[in-house]
């Protein structure tokens, strides 16, 4: 939903009878200096001298300029003028307390160093971001859970970071960005899946990042509206890749949560692969289950953005095809397209299903 003016009164959705769990909150540093205590002298120097080197050309900001500063709600800057979601107390005031959120999943975005062109730097940053989440967020507000941020372009180092955090209940998932430098099912990433499965952690894949490749398979688009729309296609590609490479054949307990990826496209992707599978079985004999079955079993999705079809029953069709047990509420706080939980899940969805989306489904996939 596009928030023009957030609702002024506090309140929690009545249907959230199995808890209100927000699987997408974006904590942010006040400045990158916040990471200093967790970095070696060499990496501190690198961070402050050369900075992050994402797979795009600009030192500051993003190649497709956001629709609003820091892609954030205008009212999300802290009273002291701090950046949006940089202060746990104000985040609680504006979101967790305000909407009655019981559990919030932290998904740190840039400058986290994920997808950096320099792997050792990305490894050091991921460690720093994880320590920072624990010290500055989870220790301050017990409702928050951290994500294991991993330097995913170095799968072995990612697996090591996951193993270091395994069993620590403050972490609830492994976090990847959706735009990896290779399609995500590529065996290059399999050590990540192996470690996540071993640690019994779901893998949250948040839309975003820079793969280094054009954002469409027909070249670079012109506009931010296209970049946003292309999140869906990049996530489709990663699902195609994970299924076709046989990730879910090899890692039978893997749980994937697609966050801010949209979800309306998922049934069609599954059907497309189902349609293709019989005619190309000779190429992919390692696939023993129908692609749609694999997707139904292994993939969860978050709301925000919720597709808005012209007619309510069309959204119901779509959610039913994905599976009512697979959809998780997400707010995307503090971003401009933030979803107030009271309005995000349309009231024409039966109440029991809304309760599952608000909390029950997240409890099951994350084991809260």
């Amino acid at each position: 939903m596009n928030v023009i003016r957030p609702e002024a009164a506090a309140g929690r959705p009545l249907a959230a009878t199995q808890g209100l769990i927000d699987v997408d909150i974006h904590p942010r540093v006040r400045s990158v200096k916040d990471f200093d205590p967790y970095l070696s002298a060499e990496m501190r120097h690198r961070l402050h001298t050369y900075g992050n080197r994402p797979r795009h050309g600009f030192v500051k900001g993003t190649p497709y300029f956001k629709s609003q500063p820091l892609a954030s709600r205008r009212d999300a800057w802290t009273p002291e003028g701090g950046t949006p979601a940089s202060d746990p107390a104000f985040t609680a005031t504006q979101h967790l307390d305000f909407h009655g959120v019981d559990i919030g999943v932290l998904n740190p975005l840039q400058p986290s160093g994920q997808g950096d062109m320099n792997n050792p730097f990305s490894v050091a940053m991921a460690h720093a971001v994880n320590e920072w989440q624990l010290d500055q967020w989870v220790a301050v507000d017990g409702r928050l859970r951290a994500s294991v941020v991993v330097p995913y372009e170095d799968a072995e180092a990612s697996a090591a970071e996951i193993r270091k955090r395994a069993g620590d209940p403050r972490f609830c998932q492994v976090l990847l960005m959706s735009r990896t430098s290779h399609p995500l099912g590529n065996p290059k990433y399999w050590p990540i899946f192996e470690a996540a499965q071993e640690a019994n952690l779901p893998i949250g894949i948040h839309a975003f990042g820079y793969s280094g490749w054009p954002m469409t398979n027909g070249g670079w688009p012109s506009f931010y509206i296209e970049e946003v729309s292309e999140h869906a296609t990049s996530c489709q590609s990663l699902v195609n890749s994970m299924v076709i490479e046989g990730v879910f054949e090899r890692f039978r307990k893997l749980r994937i949560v697609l966050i801010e990826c949209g979800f309306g496209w998922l049934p069609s992707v599954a059907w497309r692969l189902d349609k293709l599978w019989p005619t190309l079985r000779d190429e992919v004999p390692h696939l023993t289950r129908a692609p749609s079955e694999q997707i139904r079993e292994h993939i969860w999705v978050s709301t925000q953005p919720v597709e808005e079809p012209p007619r309510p029953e069309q959204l119901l069709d779509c959610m039913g095809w994905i599976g009512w047990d697979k959809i998780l509420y997400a707010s995307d706080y503090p971003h401009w397209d933030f979803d107030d939980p009271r309005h995000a899940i349309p009231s024409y969805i039966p109440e029991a299903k809304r309760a599952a989306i608000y909390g029950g489904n997240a409890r099951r996939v994350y084991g809260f």
Partner: protein
Amino acid sequence: MTALPLGAVDVDLHPMVPGLAALEPFLDPLWRDQISQRGMEGFETQSYPPNAPKTVRDDWRPADGSKPACTVEQLRAQVLEPWGISRGIVTPLYGVQLVFNEDMAAGFTRALNDWTRAKFLDEDARLAASIILPMFNAEHAVAEIERLASDPRFVQAMVLVMGETPLGRRHNWPIFEALVKHDLPLAIHAGSCWRNPVTSLGWASWYMEDYAANQQAFQSTLASLITEGVFSKFPTLKVVLLESGVSWLPAFLWRLSKTWKGVRFEVPWVDRSPIEIVRENVRMSVQPFDAPEDAETVDRLMNHLGSDEMLLWSSDWPHWQFDGPPRLPPGIGPDLMRKICVENARATYMRLAWETVP
């Protein structure tokens, strides 16, 4: 399976060029000589590996091992006659669009279009064809449209869905202007010119991923055409998506229309919701029909498409999309079947002569 209704149009037929030698009679000497001089081996593309089961349905491969799908006799015997096709639109996918040298690409494209005209259009009055466009230079593409538009048997122009740059980009607008001038729809067909990886995450390991990636490409291409303002500038431009799949379209439009509401300041020339634009200007062929084979789901999908005028029947010959006789998705009633098989194509392709309708 029910037979196709009388007057059925097949909008997606793919004659396969048997080899570069077949184009020699139609090539300028400059290019013709280079075939042997440089040892050029042929333009079959990775998008359709010639021996892959997907590329040619097994019962359409000649038993004697000769080349499949390259003559009008094969097309007649395998599709036109047994299925009672009234009109068919042929679109060869020989990879002239992949050639890096833009002059050479234009030269071979001209030859390919002339080959199609001589070997198919001149041989069977039921056939119409696509003008294959050399897209690496808009002037070349416009010149090819101008060269062939006076022949009414060319009923549309065709580009591959995965080009070098997104299709809506302004440097392509002279092409759209020429198409509108001649009332030629723009057909966008599955396949890549191999300038970019088939996913926005890089190159894929398996052919199955390559083929699946077309579904993403059609979304990106439509998004580009819409957001760049092509349909605002050329409101009468018709776009036909071929071998695109179908079921991805509604959810794609729900998302794009929602995002447009949020950030339309960025593209102020987009003055209507993408849902409306597509309903008015875009059509798509039915194969591959990417949905479960149950009537209830198909019925819901038709509801999501929101119009009975969107779909055009196609066999996708000789690609393997289905076995046996012609197929329509389950649960399609006779009225919708007639729209899909006959009327929608007639409304889209004004150049298909009405008098041939039985």
